[in-house]
């Protein structure tokens, strides 16, 4: 749906984005990750034609991205605002009309979304009367009101309580099911693991990683295993001797434990099982994949080390 090709951007001779390329497919949620100041917001503004790139281009369905395509996009910036003195309904109507909806369609959509989020009572409230969380919901609705094919959301979960995070998460998954494509920029790595199909990681304006979430975790795995058992912890530890390294222990009561460990001396999972099976009752064994947070931190640190060398 969207292809970003070799984007460069400079501000006052300083490179902000350097040769960034990636694509967003139909019905896909793409996580745009990176630490603060990595260039994510600049990239999103370029896709939305708010600012122009110095080199490279953006394609929409294979054609150069033009102004008319903006109506197919719903953009929720990180620092979003609302007109404080307007009512919820008038605000939604104004933004929906600016995004190309007719008056009738806009009113129909407003009704639909107010029903869906169960906030019909807010319709005539002025924005200044709403709490921060309520205003965030209104902003989200304003973004999706015109039923855009593509959603670009900068920190969509910030400011929400856990219940509303779940509400927005479900809504995004539902939009994905309906074939909408979504780019999410977030620091919330749990949500990345839960809803993103693929991620692009950028730092200091350069792309460091791109790929499927599961694949990236697999690629970054550290030969770590989690074994759950019932029995004596001392006996378990003694049995391991020097062939394995315990990284972390979790006690669950009633002599039930989970232990994270790494292999030593070319040992494999079979060796581990053979070593401990006579000492404890094993209930579960699994390979531990690194969290996306771990992948994120490791990749950024690796880049730092490389650039220091």
């Amino acid at each position, binding site marked *: 749906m969207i292809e970003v090709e070799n984007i460069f951007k400079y501000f006052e001779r300083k490179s902000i984005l350097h040769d960034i390329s990636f694509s967003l497919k139909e019905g896909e949620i793409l996580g745009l990750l990176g630490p603060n100041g990595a260039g994510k917001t600049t990239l999103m503004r370029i896709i939305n034609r708010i600012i122009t790139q110095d080199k490279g281009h953006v394609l929409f369905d294979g054609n150069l991205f033009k102004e008319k395509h903006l109506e197919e996009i719903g953009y929720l910036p990180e620092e979003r605002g609302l007109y404080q003195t307007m009512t919820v309904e008038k605000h939604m109507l104004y933004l929906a009309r*600016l995004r190309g909806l007719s008056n009738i369609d806009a009113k129909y959509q407003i009704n639909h979304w107010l029903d869906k989020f169960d906030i019909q009572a807010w319709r005539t409230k002025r924005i200044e009367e709403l709490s921060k969380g309520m205003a965030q919901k209104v902003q989200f609705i304003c973004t999706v009101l015109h039923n855009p094919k593509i959603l670009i959301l900068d920190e969509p979960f910030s400011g929400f309580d856990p219940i509303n995070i779940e509400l927005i998460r479900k809504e995004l998954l539902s939009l994905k099911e309906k074939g909408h494509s979504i780019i999410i920029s977030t620091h919330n790595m749990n949500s990345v693991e839960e809803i993103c199909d693929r991620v692009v990681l950028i730092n200091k304006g350069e792309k460091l990683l791109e790929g499927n979430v599961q694949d990236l975790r697999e690629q970054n795995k550290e030969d770590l295993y989690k074994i759950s058992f019932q029995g004596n912890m001392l006996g378990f530890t003694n049995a391991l001797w020097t062939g394995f390294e315990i990284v972390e222990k979790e006690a669950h009561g009633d002599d039930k434990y989970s232990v994270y460990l790494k292999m030593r001396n070319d040992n494999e999972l079979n060796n581990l099982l053979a070593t401990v099976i006579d000492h404890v009752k094993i209930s579960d064994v699994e390979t531990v994949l690194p969290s996306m947070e771990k992948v994120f931190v490791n990749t950024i640190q690796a880049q730092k080390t490389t650039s220091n060398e």
Partner: protein
Amino acid sequence: MNKIVLIAKREIAERFGNRFYRWLMVLGPLLVLGLVYLFLSRAESDKKHWNVLIMDKSNVFDTKLAITKPDNLSFSFINTFLDYEEFAYDDLYQKYDLAISINEKIVSNKHVIISYREYPPESIQRQLVYLVERRLEEIMVEEFTDLSVEKFREIKQSLTFNLKDTYDPKNELSTTASWVGFVFGSLIILFVFMFGMTILRSVAREKSNRIVEVLLSTVKPRELLAGKVLGVGFSAIFQFVVWTGIIALGLFLFRLTIFPDIFTGSFVADTFMETENGQEIINQNIFVDLVYRQIHYANMLVFFVLFFIGGYLFYGSFFAMIGASMGSESDGQQFVIPITLLIFGSILSGYYAIYNPGTLLNEWLSFIPFTSPMNMMIQLANGFSEGTAWKLFVALGVLFISALIMLFMAGRIYKNGLLRFNHRLRFRMLLNWTKK
């Protein structure tokens, strides 16, 4: 275009929803009418008939004061002296508004006391002083000289020096008409400043509450600027039309009800005192003449609207530039000061134009877009001599071309500055933003 209309409509709705705007729409013209009423009331009090009691104990004036009695004054003489309390409370004297006490040594001490119940207007005071002085003059000439009063006055008469404009010897281009233009020019400047500040605040608010990024993902910065300028401009013109309507209706009602004889007798026409030496002007009510006769409303209003639109677009683009480029509200306020000074300069240039109409500097000020709305309104009020009306259209053309250039530059600054926050605004930064 559709988006520009939507943005303009929102701006208009916001202005109409604003309590201050609605109050100003009604209170502004009422305030103007109030001032007009005050001036007219003053004229009305000039018209009042004053009964004057002259306390001449020694009969110095011989019960005479003026050969021709003025319409608005009547005199009664008594040869006693009343103290203040007597005059104030005695029923006998309640019909008198003023009492003039002529003491017996007036010829030497030159001292006269006028007691009043209601403070007399300047014109009445001048009339009384004039009459008493002349009567005393007659008495002194009779007593101390062998000259006739006429001869004495002929000798005493001071030289009159007349300053005449060689290009306008009949003084057709009076400053009264210029002041009419000045009032119109000031209205333009007032509205431009008021609604220019509205643009600035509107842009600054959108920046500070961050709605601007949401808007820019849908509309171009220039569309946003155009919609805002159009919306605020429409609100300004609407405000002006309502002001004009209420003021016109008020003036019409004043003439119909409160001041029906506004053009009669001493109200407008000059009041003359017949003396042995001819006529002397005692009182003139320029104001009534100015409001009801001097202003050629149709002509002035057409050009007022044109110069207002030009001036609004020209100055409005400056305000939009500042609003879009400011890092914080206090930061931007510093850049409002130079514009306020320019606007103040424009008013000063109007003042200069009234008293120095023919100078080269004034010619230039008529074409410079910063001052042309004010200067041209003054020239328009005076009328253009044959073959010079082109100046009006050239000034209008220069103003509109300058406004378009400024709007183009404002568009660039708008585009570059809207998404910059918390920076310190520098003039060089503004210049750089106009280049790309």
